[in-house]
């Protein structure tokens, strides 16, 4: 047996969300990743975010590329369709799926090899097109399945488990996403579920290209001294700019925030994002400032996390293409075929 189904029974008193689903309804198969893998924490955070948002589990499409991270869609939302596609090509497959049916929620799961190396181009172009998706990179700086080679997000000067020094410069996917016009950009850490869950929830509710880079230590190959993607390193250098509360529905903001410490951003669907500022001067609506801030702190070896940029007036690819509201995959011959009378006119124009 090369897959492991999870037993279905659960505690009868398990809490239910607005749709009557429990946590268990958002789970998938049992993970086959290494015990303690950061990716499993991200899986748990996705489950938590979907539960909290009361999403119909089957209305999500999970799409991934190839690699450890890309295996994870099998481990959450077992009632959703998943597509473990081709290495580095999740963004194009997701783009096509999104074009076919604009009504589903698209969750793209990728890794640093998948998105920063082989799929760097597809990552970039899906972001610049503004595909309505939540694009999560489970970033561990290393190729796990092929046993520990550096990836393109590994910092220059960091050491592999075998002691080899990385001499290539690192690609910062967050910086690139900002530059390419992603309308929601965040970074988080798999070891900080409290930060990650609301970020995923907000990204799902965002219209447009949402990108979350999650540093997710590889406990097998990249969790040693000298690595800049280890649990210890990221904990020590984590520089969170804000903490996020996602407020759905029309409820007033009841949490008592000290004046000037919270930035509220209302998204397209009415979701409000309350950003509790940690860095008092950080403005999550300022793309240029975010880029500068990121560069300055990266130079100091800090890992900036939080909701780094959000555009409340974002658009998506369907807006740009001006497609009909009805999902294209539901249109039938009567909607799509111009018929014989139109064809006769075309024939006449070709004589």
């Amino acid at each position, binding site marked *: 047996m*090369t*897959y492991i189904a999870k037993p279905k029974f659960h505690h009868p008193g398990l809490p239910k969300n607005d749709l009557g689903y429990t946590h268990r309804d958002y789970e998938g198969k049992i993970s086959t990743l290494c015990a303690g893998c950061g990716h499993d924490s991200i899986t748990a955070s996705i489950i938590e975010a979907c539960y909290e948002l009361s999403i119909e*589990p*089957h*209305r999500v*499409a999970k*799409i991934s590329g190839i690699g450890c991270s890309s295996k994870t*869609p*099998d481990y959450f939302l077992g*009632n*959703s*369709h*998943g*597509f*473990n*596609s*081709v290495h580095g*090509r999740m*963004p*194009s*497959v*997701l*783009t*096509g*799926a*999104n*074009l*076919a*049916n604009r*009504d*589903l929620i698209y969750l793209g799961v990728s890794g640093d090899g998948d998105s920063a190396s082989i799929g760097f*181009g*597809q990552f*970039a*172009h899906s972001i610049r*097109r503004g595909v309505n998706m939540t694009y999560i990179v489970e970033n561990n700086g290393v190729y796990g399945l092929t046993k520990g080679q550096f990836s393109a997000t590994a910092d220059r000067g960091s050491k592999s488990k075998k002691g080899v020094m990385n001499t290539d410069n690192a690609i910062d996917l967050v910086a690139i996403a900002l530059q390419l016009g992603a309308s929601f950009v965040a970074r988080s850490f798999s070891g900080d579920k409290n930060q990650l869950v609301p970020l995923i929830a907000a990204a799902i509710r965002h219209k447009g290209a949402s990108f979350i880079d999650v540093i997710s230590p590889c406990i097998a190959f990249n969790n040693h001294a000298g690595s800049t993607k280890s649990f210890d390193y990221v904990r020590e250098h984590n520089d969170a700019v804000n903490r996020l509360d996602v407020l759905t529905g029309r409820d007033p903001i009841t949490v008592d925030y000290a004046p000037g410490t919270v930035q509220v951003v209302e998204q397209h669907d009415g979701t409000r994002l309350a950003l509790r500022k940690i860095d008092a001067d950080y403005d999550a609506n300022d793309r240029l400032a975010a880029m500068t801030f990121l560069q300055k702190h990266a130079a100091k070896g800090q890992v900036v996390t939080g909701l780094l940029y959000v555009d409340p007036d974002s658009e998506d*690819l*369907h807006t740009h*293409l*001006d*497609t*009909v509201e009805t999902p*294209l*995959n*539901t*249109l*039938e*011959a009567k*909607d*799509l*075929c*111009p*018929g*014989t009378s*139109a*064809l006769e006119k*075309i*024939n006449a124009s*070709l*004589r």
Partner: protein
Amino acid sequence: MPDQSPISSVNDFVVRFANVNGSGSASANELFARSILRHGVPVSPRNIFPSNIQGLPTWYEVRVTEDGHLGARGGVDMMVAMNPQTWDKDVASIEPGGYLFYDSTKPMPTSKFRADINVIGVPLTAITNSTYTDPRQRQLFKNIIYLGALCALLDMDPKLVEQLIGEQYKGKEKLLSSNVHALHLGRDWALQNLKCPVGLRVKKSDKVGERIFIEGNSAAALGAVYGGATVCAWYPITPSSSVAEAFTSHCKKLRHDPETGKAKYAIVQGEDELASIGIVIGASWNGARAFTATSGPGISLMTEFIGLSYFAEIPAVIMNIQRAGPSTGMPTRTQQCDIIACAYASHGDTKHVLLFPEDPAEAFEFAAQSFDLADRLQTMIFLMLDLDIGMNHRLCRPLKWDDARQYDRGKVMTAEMLDEPGRDFGRYLDVDGDGIPYRTYPGTHPTKGSFFTRGTSRDRYARYSEEGAVYADNMQRLVRKFETAQDMVPRPLQANAAKPTKYGVIYFGSTAPAMDEAIGLLEARGHQLDRMRIRAFPFHSSVASFIADHDFVYVVEQNRDAQLRQLIVNENGIDPVRLVPILHYDGTPITARFIANAIGDHQDHLKVTPLRKAVS
């Protein structure tokens, strides 16, 4: 005076225009071809163009053919030599007794001409410059002026040309009248100064009938509109770009919601061919009809995804407008050279369905049908056009559609079906014994019918598995599915010779008009051939029986390695000796003369007796 009597022919000759790329000659030349059609005389035009935007030589060849031979003929009866760069080669290519039409504004040394051709000089630049001052106008109207002169020389009815100009510039009176004026400038000069008409003449006839004049790429794109394609992702590559561009313009006219004005389609220009096919696969996985158009290099880039489509069983359509390979090859020259590359595209054991339309009308039909086939068979379908069909206007039967026709979306399980008592959904379960499983679209049912699509091996319920028996079971089912495809794809068409014969010929795609004409030429030489036009792969069982019924069969194709022949040998276990390759692969369209010579020589050789051989 030429030492060869001038060629004399009514409604059967070849005019070739030698121009400079980017000089605006294309529309005047096309106007010439269309004008002849309006005389009721079939024409077959071909663009011979460089991989260049401006400055390099380009030719437009019009075969005037009352008999309706739409393949390239070879040879030039009249050269309209407007490009000094190619003058020598152009003059050399004229048939003895043929005509050279040139701009005589500047005198040319006699050494630049040939004694055995008829030289017709018209001072085009002088006429143009005395009439127009704007440089752009001078360039454009010069083309119309030579068209006017040709009108007089070839005895064409100027009213029919005027009518076409009127249709082209409807509502733009100024352009209309200035074009008509330029036409008459040229015509009047020729009538006053030259002996008109020459030996080549266009005479009104009724051989065009209801036929239409359309490029294969535009027809294929229209087939995609009629076939219900809603997603198109593409990356520009010659000679396929005009498929996506035509799809865009057809959709703009035919696919907007009348009330909201919104688009019932999505077209994305991908960042490369990998993204384009990825978008197609994603859209098809999610239940839309999607396609891409590309050419050889694009196919090479797409092969990983093509394997995914085969193995994960995701419908998709690729229109491959073939050009001469390998590598970048000759991007603006035609070949049928991706047969093997497409039939077996991708690593591992794969096989794909190929469709071979012969002309734009069939490109339209097969394009529409390819979406039904992709959905029904849940696999990649290749529509194999080539530059010769794709980028040239071709006279063909009118496009037809049946309004009662519904799209065949194949085996898709709905929420209602999933809820039926006793219904077992396994994504890769062969429920009906035809190798085709059921699929569900994402988002169908809250608790049933979801599955994980992957390129890795999996069991009948789409669960990951590396068990050998499970893997082999799936691979065997894919073979069954491919066998099912055999009876769904367009069947070969067979035409028997007038007299019983031991010999046959197999051909496909853009070779068809040249082959049809060659049959007549071969008959005249005393050779009878039964013929079969293959229209799809996998091959129908009639292909093997056709070969079995003949001593041997010629396989005519436009590539070096006899790719269709290889495929027939490989797939049908045919003795290669029984299939004689007839190969044309210099990048020009195959001609009837070439086929008739190659087959005729081979047949003549068969008739040589050993005794006579010994004597010689």
